[in-house]
């Protein structure tokens, strides 16, 4: 029997559950981790729960769209272990705690905000429900002593929402995430996610990070000290052979000139420890400066995902990005000049998108993606719990659906139609793991691994071939997109027969194209693998 089973997605190592596990173990509790990356993993999780018989099961919901799968899993776990305490945590549960407890009697509680010490206190007081009212950050269903714990009776319990728990002031005080199994390896390279900070100093309308942290007392953006961060990197490097560190910080840099100081400190510490590794980071466009990013590349930062979000100044304003298209363009151009892989994504559809915004976004995509320096990534803004845009659209009465999944319609029907056509025809290529866009993105990671970690076997022709392939995919997407754009401007977009026939035609062209290019990509990968075998 174990004390706690923590369940979460594991495409990459789940840092959320690993931080929780580390804190619980530090206090003497036994913890197991379970992978729930897709709904197909449910049986394995239930089996693991039956074998380990935890007293508490924690489900970590990172992405709101997966909440129904987690709730279905909670129901299966409840059937398997009727007496276990089932709690939910993460961004979405934090903002929808009361609704979830109201609607899903299989849940006993929700851990809101940063979960480490709320969960610890819950485990410590698990057998004393009368004391739960003092656990900051916890929402729970009060069940009277006389009520039996049958699911049907759980609806009757009053939902109690305790005050929020203050943020963890000193991130160095947290133990390193519990890494029970060796990190993943690819092409002979170990790679691990990690974070050097929590929170973001900005307040974009589509993002819940700021509200997630600002609902608790404390500084919204906090950083680990550089020695503490590099201690963890060194541990992973020496113990597991990790040589690719994938930073998943909400925003890697502190605001303003402080970013120079942090980079200088990190550079010195990495040099002192002699860690020969590469890194990937996420940042804002206004973080990017030539001198800073040259220095970062020299330190081993080979990829930056830049939160560009839009090629339209109007959209950047409505998204509250506090950046301009000129800054976005400059940031990507600097990265290209420096020689760092510059990934970026655009929210080309949002509740306020106009035809002019779309034109600007398409032009930006062609300018920045047409040469194949990175696979294109674009989509629609989804309205997530805790975001400023949710509040605004609710006020304006523009939402359909419910708290589990909100939806909206773009006022200009031509723009709305373009979004619908795009998702119908490009879904597989752009949004599925096996789709060509994702596969191109993985290939670029592979290129980075070979180029920087197997430099002796790197051939620049590999880079050229991949760039050419990605350019063809990007330009094919853009050509189809242009046709769709033209269609929405000039054809009868209310004619369902015409619209459906066109969508099917575009989807067919994309599928045929992708079949050919996927074979080429496969050949490219085999060449890379062959080189590494020599």
């Amino acid at each position, binding site marked *: 029997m174990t004390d706690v089973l923590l369940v979460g997605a594991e495409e990459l190592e789940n840092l959320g559950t690993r931080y929780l596990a580390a804190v619980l173990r530090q206090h003497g509790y036994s913890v197991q981790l379970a992978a729930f990356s897709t709904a197909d993993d449910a049986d394995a999780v239930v089996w693991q729960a039956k074998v380990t018989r935890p007293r508490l099961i924690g489900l970590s919901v990172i992405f709101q769209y997966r909440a129904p799968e987690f709730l279905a899993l909670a129901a299966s776990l409840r059937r398997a272990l009727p007496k276990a305490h089932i709690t939910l945590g993460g961004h979405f549960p934090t903002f929808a705690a009361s609704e979830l407890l109201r609607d899903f009697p299989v849940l006993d509680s929700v851990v809101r905000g940063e979960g480490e010490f709320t969960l610890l206190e819950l485990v410590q007081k698990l057998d004393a429900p009368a004391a739960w009212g003092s656990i900051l950050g916890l929402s729970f269903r009060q069940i009277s002593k006389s009520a039996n714990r049958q699911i049907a009776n759980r609806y009757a319990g009053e939902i109690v929402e305790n005050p929020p728990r203050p943020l963890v002031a000193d991130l160095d005080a947290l133990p390193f995430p519990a890494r029970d199994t060796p990190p993943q390896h690819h092409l002979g390279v170990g790679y691990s996610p990690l974070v050097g900070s929590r929170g973001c100093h900005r307040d974009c309308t589509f993002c819940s990070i700021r509200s997630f942290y600002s609902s608790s007392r404390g500084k919204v953006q906090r950083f680990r000290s550089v020695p503490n961060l590099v201690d963890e990197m060194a541990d992973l490097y020496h113990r597991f052979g990790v040589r690719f560190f994938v930073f998943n910080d909400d925003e890697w840099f502190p605001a303003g000139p402080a970013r120079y100081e942090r980079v200088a400190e990190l550079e010195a510490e990495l040099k002192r420890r002699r860690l020969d590794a590469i890194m990937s980071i996420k940042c804002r466009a206004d973080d990017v400066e030539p001198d800073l990013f040259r220095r970062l590349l020299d330190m081993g930062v080979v990829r930056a995902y830049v939160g560009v979000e839009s090629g339209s100044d109007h959209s950047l304003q409505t998204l509250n990005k506090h950046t301009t298209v000129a800054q976005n363009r400059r940031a990507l151009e600097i990265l290209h000049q420096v020689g760092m892989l510059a990934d970026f994504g655009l929210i080309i559809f949002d509740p306020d998108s106009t035809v002019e915004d779309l034109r600007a976004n398409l032009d930006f995509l062609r300018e920045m993606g047409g040469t194949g320096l990175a696979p294109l990534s674009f989509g629609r803004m989804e309205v997530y719990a805790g975001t400023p845009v949710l509040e605004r659209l609710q006020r304006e009465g523009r939402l359909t659906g419910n708290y589990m999944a909100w939806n909206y319609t773009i006022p200009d*029907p031509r723009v*709305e*139609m373009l979004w*619908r*056509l795009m*998702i*119908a*025809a490009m*879904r*597989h290529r752009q949004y599925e793991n096996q789709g060509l866009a994702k596969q191109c993105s993985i290939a670029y990671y592979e290129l980075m691994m070979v180029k920087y970690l197997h430099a002796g076997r790197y051939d620049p022709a590999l880079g050229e071939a991949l760039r050419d392939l990605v350019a063809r995919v990007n330009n094919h997407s853009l050509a189809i997109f242009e046709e769709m754009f033209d269609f929405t401007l000039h054809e009868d*977009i*209310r*004619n*369902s*027969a*015409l*619209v*459906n026939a066109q*969508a*099917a035609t575009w*989807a*067919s062209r994309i*599928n*045929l194209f992708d*079949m*050919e290019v*996927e*074979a080429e990509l496969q050949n490219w990968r085999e060449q890379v693998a062959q080189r590494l075998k020599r």
Partner: protein
Amino acid sequence: MIRLDKLPKKVQKAILAVIFFFGGTSASCRLCPPIVCDPAPPPSVTPMICDPPPMPSSTPTPYVTPTSFVAPGQHFTGKIVRTAPNADLAGAAIQGTVVDQYGQPLGGLPVTVTRDGWEARAVSDSSGAFSFEVPEAGTYVLAIEGDEANALTLELGLHDEVTVEWVEAWDSSQVPLPLAEVRTVEIVRHGRLAFAADTPWSGARYQWSVSGGTLAEEGESAVWQPPARPGRYLLQVVADWGRTGLAVDALVLIVGRDGSVTVG
């Protein structure tokens, strides 16, 4: 005596379904309707005349849950397309289709037919079709639920089979955009060469295609006959729900030199 129209609607439906199946309100055998089993059949009729006749084409549509409802600003203009006698009918029958203004079928809509407290309900299928058998001649009111203002009044004689067509119209300011919902479909392999389209949404029309070889398709299923030439071939299915949505999935099928077929 228990009056049918005083019973709950669900019970009425169940009783009527039994009545339809076993041959109407008379005690006669449905398999040998009186008109066919006339004691003096014309000489040309085969001696096997009283063997079970083929099932009538207008069997009652099994009731399914509507997936679509009349929206604000949406209405339907109905007309009688044809009335023809059908001697196989115990009473009379109504069949019809619902299409949008471009002739695309509208599936999932609830259709009702009523007469003096008697009511039957059906839902248009993926080709927009619906059908009813009614127990006897009379005046019936046919309507799409939610658009009763545009109901059709039908005078049905015994053995009449009437065909109607509903065409959707919209108040000009409220015509909806197509592809209203984001839907998905997935090709599932059911055997070496057999495939099926899998989707949680009912009522789709499926269109299969393949870039090589031949395809025998029937609705959501397809069987592929690969070409002799080795290579990569694309199998694709389009699931079309009309204005509600459209989804596409594809599989790459690889034919090896030895004739083996693998999914890429």
